[in-house]
């Protein structure tokens, strides 16, 4: 899957490895989490209201469309969170995913 965003410059930065729902991914030092994910794939998450893929909206911490989760269950606002090496990101709250498997 190719990314939704296109990098237009600042390519000379250290690569950082992370994962999205267990799949290996890579970003660059200085990326926000949103930008790192959307350079790998075309979405951040799937809307809980049934209208399909979502990829953030405001990029300035105002709309809250970009929530992702860490494996420990911490909610991360992807557009205002910096990517860190080794981050393990989930696109659904871990509790919910577990419920899904159980049902």
């Amino acid at each position, binding site marked *: 899957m190719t990314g*939704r*965003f*296109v*990098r*237009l*410059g*600042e390519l*000379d*930065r250290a690569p950082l490895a992370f994962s999205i729902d267990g799949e290996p991914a890579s970003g660059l*030092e*200085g*990326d*926000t989490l949103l*930008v790192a994910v*959307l*350079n790998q794939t*075309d*979405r951040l998450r799937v*809307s809980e*209201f*049934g*209208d*399909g*893929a*979502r*990829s*953030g*909206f*405001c*990029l*300035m*911490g*105002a*709309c*809250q*469309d970009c*929530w992702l989760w860490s494996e420990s269950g*911490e*909610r991360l606002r992807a*557009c*205002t969170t*910096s990517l860190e090496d080794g981050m393990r990101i989930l696109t659904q709250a871990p509790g919910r995913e577990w419920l899904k498997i159980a049902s």
Partner: protein
Amino acid sequence: MAEDRIIVVGAGPAGVRATEALVQAGLRPSVIDEGQRDGGQIYRRQPEGFLRAKSELYGTEADRAAKLHETFAHLKPKIDYRPETLAWNISEGSLHVVRGAQSEALAYDALIVAAGATDRIMPVRGWNRAGVYSLGGSQIALKAQACAIGRQVVFLGSGPLLYLVASQYVKAGASVAAVLDTAPRQLRVKALPKLLARPDVLLKGIALDRHLRRSGIDVLTGVHPVAIEGSDERGVEAVSVRLPGGEVRTIACDAVGLGHHLRPETQLADLARCAFRFDAQTRQWQPEVDAEGRSSVKGIYLAGDSSRTLGADGAEAAGRLAALAALKDRGHAVSANEMARLTKTIARIDRFRQGISEAFPWPHQAAAELSDDTVVCRCECITAGELRAVASEKGATELNRAKAFSRVGMGRCQGRYCGHAAAEVVAAAAGLPLEQVGRLRGQAPVKPLPVAAGVALP
């Protein structure tokens, strides 16, 4: 004189200039900003380690950006600066702030709110699809992260930011499929007398338009948005608009930057119980301020975009003036001449602001024409049809009642992106003037708090 406890919310142009005036008066204000770095929206900074020059990031405004950043760097050791800190409530003379899991109440004698603005959005069918971003968001992707929001980008909406962001995309090497302005071009001619209040800024605007045309970009004006087409799975695939002649044009793209100018961030003013007034020209509620930035509540001052959209230069002047007003009210000696000069500058910039809102009006008529299945609230997928139903069947023609019945404005963004359009939809459905529908009241916390903060909500 006893220590004055003054807090500034926001480290954009307005907040920085307010802070500077306070430090010059010998005070050590607290400055609260949610961002990692100072600069606010227009002078937003790229992360450490990025190499683009200021001229690349801020274009004609590079010098002003450099000056503002320098000023703040000098102020930092003299103030209590709290970056990455959200001001989330105001109660009994205290501002409640949270940083990570750390929450605190800061008592103040005077509070200067310079919280900026967010994009004002008129929904279009399909604007909830992946790949649609606010205009401001499209700009942030480029300015702060050196990315385009897609491979083929359409910019849709109205206002100066539409042309600015499109032009910045072209300069940075992104592919812009079209610029679609809902405002008819002739309105700019009509607004000219007011726009001439700032000839330099007017010329910069004309240059942007010209740059786009010279670059071969389709710039269509007076369009009526029909839909952002695509699929739930893949997101945006095209934008359709009806041209003034009636022809429908469909433009293929994989991303849309959408916005109709700005709306002020007024939640903190609301929580401080400031009075609001309806501005008939822009069709929005604004906190009442006097010419020097005093709100209706003693000790609360409002400056910059969070009271009126005056742009960056206006924000700098209004920030400084609000701080001088606060100092004066607390018994400090301030220069009456300087205050008079700033008031005059702001009046001129305000005339230009009126010209801009005449030239690029909020397309309120579009609300009545939204199909029933158009999503108005992106957060919870509440449609225009659902809103019309609560207005007509439940008689909920006051916005906060419509909110209670439909949940519009209760979602993640707390009405920032749907509030204005929802009011227009309800007003049109009920056949009421917009001001009678009211406005969504700001509530604490002004943004969702980190779960770990564990603060007790009021």
